[in-house]
């Protein structure tokens, strides 16, 4: 186990260097620069443009900029946003909890509904239940997020008034963030109604963000279960007279879970990278929109720092997923 962990940590370093190289070069390959973009249609005088580029160190050779950046990163300094002038780490720290909270809720929603749906669809293969679950999954997978989100808003917020339109919590609640997780902070604040507001604000974005993972997990579970249910040892267990629930729930499921857990891990990685569309519709202040806006504004430091941080998080998630294999299947214990 220890060797496994050390091995994985060792891979982190070259991976980070690779990510930083990609982040650094890709954003600079895009035409335009952040200084010019800040003035928009107003054309900046070339001398002033050169001056500001010099202040930001952007007129140095790229490899010099890169090595300088790398040496700062190693010391924990990811630089400051070229646009807002705030430290990248600070901006990430403020925005990431929102993404994390929403992603966790979305993946939970997807797992809690998706896995049972997939199991039943597999067990009841060929029946109307199976067909409708897979049909719904296909629709969920194909739906444009923008449209789905707006539809839910029009129905649940504006017609039925069951949920707020957007935002993490009602505007009348104002308290200093402690953890950054609105559900926890609202409880800690002690303000009456705050938790309820935070929870109800989470409902629609969770559904919207969780729809595609739900569809993927349901289909994945179904196919994994079908494969396992066809195995000899399942037939053996059945012929031994074991209760169907035990056969399915204990023997079959545990083996089916490995590809499903992999799929979940990948989904989590995608979600944690920020859900730009969901964040835009629900005015959810997360890192997805932050990163995309940074690319449009050529905010080099934010793009670089953001990619490094997200890559780090995804690596941690993958590590957890790998460790979980050991839990599910003793043969894979590291």
């Amino acid at each position, binding site marked *: 186990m220890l060797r496994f962990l050390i091995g994985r940590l060792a891979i982190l370093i070259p991976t980070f260097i690779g990510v930083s190289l990609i982040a650094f070069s890709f954003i600079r390959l*895009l*035409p*335009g*620069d*952040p*200084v*010019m*973009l*800040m*003035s*928009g*249609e*107003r*054309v*900046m*005088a070339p001398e*002033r443009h050169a*001056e*500001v580029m010099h*202040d*930001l*160190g952007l007129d140095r050779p790229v490899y010099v900029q890169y090595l300088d950046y790398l040496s700062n990163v190693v010391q924990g300094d990811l630089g*400051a946003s*070229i*646009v*807002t*002038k*705030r430290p990248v780490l600070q*901006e990430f720290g*403020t*925005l990431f909890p929102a993404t994390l909270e929403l992603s966790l809720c979305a993946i939970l929603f997807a797992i809690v509904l998706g896995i049972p749906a997939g199991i039943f669809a597999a067990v009841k293969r060929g029946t109307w239940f199976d067909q409708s679950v897979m049909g719904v999954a296909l629709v969920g997978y194909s739906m444009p997020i923008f449209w789905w989100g*707006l539809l839910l*808003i*029009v129905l649940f*917020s*504006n017609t039925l*008034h069951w949920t*707020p*339109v*957007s*935002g*993490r919590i009602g*505007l*009348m609640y*104002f308290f200093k*963030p402690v953890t950054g997780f609105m559900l926890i902070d609202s409880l800690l604040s002690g303000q009456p109604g705050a938790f309820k507001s935070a929870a109800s604000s989470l409902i629609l974005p969770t559904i919207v963000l969780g729809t595609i993972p739900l569809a993927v997990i349901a289909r994945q579970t179904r196919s994994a279960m079908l494969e396992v249910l066809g195995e000899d040892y399942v037939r053996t267990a059945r012929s031994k007279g074991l209760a169907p629930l035990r056969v399915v729930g204990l023997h079959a499921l545990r083996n089916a879970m490995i590809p499903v857990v992999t799929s979940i891990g990948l989904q989590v990685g995608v979600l944690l990278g920020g859900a730009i569309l969901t964040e*835009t*519709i*629900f*005015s959810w*202040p*997360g890192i997805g*929109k*932050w990163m995309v806006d940074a690319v*449009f504004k*050529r905010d080099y430091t934010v793009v670089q720092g953001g990619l490094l941080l997200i890559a780090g998080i995804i690596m941690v998630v993958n590590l957890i997923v790998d460790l979980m294999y050991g839990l599910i299947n003793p043969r894979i214990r590291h």
Partner: protein
Amino acid sequence: MKKMSVLLAATVLASAMASAAWSKTLVYCSEGSPEGFDPGIYTAGTTFDASSRTVYSRLVEFQHGKTEIEPGLAESWTVSDDGTVYTFKLRPGVKFQATEFFTPSRDLNADDVVFSFERQLKADSPWAKYVAGVSYEYAAGMGFPDLIKSVEKVDDLTVKFTLNHPEAPFLADLAMDFASVLSKEYADKLQADGKMEQMNQMPLGTGPYTFVAYQPDAVIRYKANETYFKGKEKIDDLVFAITPDASVRAQKLKAGECHIMPYPNAADIKDLQTDSNLKVLEQPGLNVSYLAYNTLQAPFDKAEVRKALNMAINKQAIVEAVFQGAGQVAKNPIPPTMWSYNDAIKDDAYNPTEAKAMLEKAGVKDLSMKIWAMPVSRPYMLNARRAAELMQADLAKVGVKVDIVTHEWAEYLKLSKDKARDGAAILGWTGDNGDPDNFLDTLLGCEAVGGNNRAQWCNKEFDDLVKKAKKTADVAERTKLYEQAQVVFKKEAPWATIDHSTEFVPMSAKVSGFVQDPVGVHRFDGVDIAE
């Protein structure tokens, strides 16, 4: 004794509840996050709405809904005969906001004004580059470092600006967002504490609303400035709910979750107008969209060719298709709401037959040209691609083959100003200060060729007129000069002027006192909301 304390507690509770009940909150669904809160270092309207218009004040201000100037922090001013010395008398007793992060110990005085301008003008000011990459872009763009010789304190309530040459739009420039007045005391404290970046994160000014908190990308909170020199605002709490998607903003407005929203989708406007709980303010924007020919490139160096092409384009159809009617065809480079607009000028009639004849007469046969279309939606041009397609079809009818070219926005801005640009480019402009100079000289003056002058057009007659108009403060004389300049422009046709778009601000019917600003910023002073 116990009864007394219970009574006391009940009274305190009751009055607390009463004051909470009376607290008026206005929610504005803004379209994006501010880049920061220092209005000197940014140029985006979104940032100004959240900083200069709420927290700060200026020496002079635009009258509500107009581009005329009225006293602000300066209660009066005199201009020397030669137009180079402006002396402002500051209003006494103006207080800076008291906040959780700083308590000012004195009223506004000349030191604050001098500081606010010198930091933007002097390269050796400690605030010149207080954070990496800081550039006082607006001040530089308006030519302030070259224009202003000195800003001096005469006495505590008198400030003198000495200019290097007369500049008629100078007063209008001082009403602009970048000319907001900061607190020198606060600045000195931040500098001493080594926290200068805080100026951009926690602003402090003399404006109608005091900054309370900013949750990045989510909410900005302000409360009414108790000591505002024009009297405390009727709104107690002002909240900006940052809502990037226009459809969602409309939904929030309809649901009553916000009271005012900017930049609705053209498609949503009708729905919002018919909602009985809402009202939609509209007014022509202080903007223009145009197709700039490259007048250095043959055959576009001939005025007859440009005129002919203008006559081939059906501008009304573009306004209908692209703006869904929310705009008006442009005949001049300045919008009709601007003073000195020459209404006597006749627009190029849409006449493809005549256009074809004119092209033939000019010796143009089988012309192939490029039209550059912006990839992004701007307030003055909602869909350049669509406009370009319509122009392509129109020009095909007169035998001109058009290729539509586009680049990513940053690249577009960069390449379109190149003197060697191949083709005509669609672009536009929103006015900064309500002064015609801001359009005519900035976009069409000789000095702007290779820069803001996308037509690369340098016409001596036109340039002389606009340069002369800069030098005199006599409005009547300036009007005459600008009217003449527009006549020259029409004759030479360096652009096909496309349209001036309408700006809409939908809001709850309960809101009163909100006036649309011609320059496009959103002001909340004087706004009230019925309970």
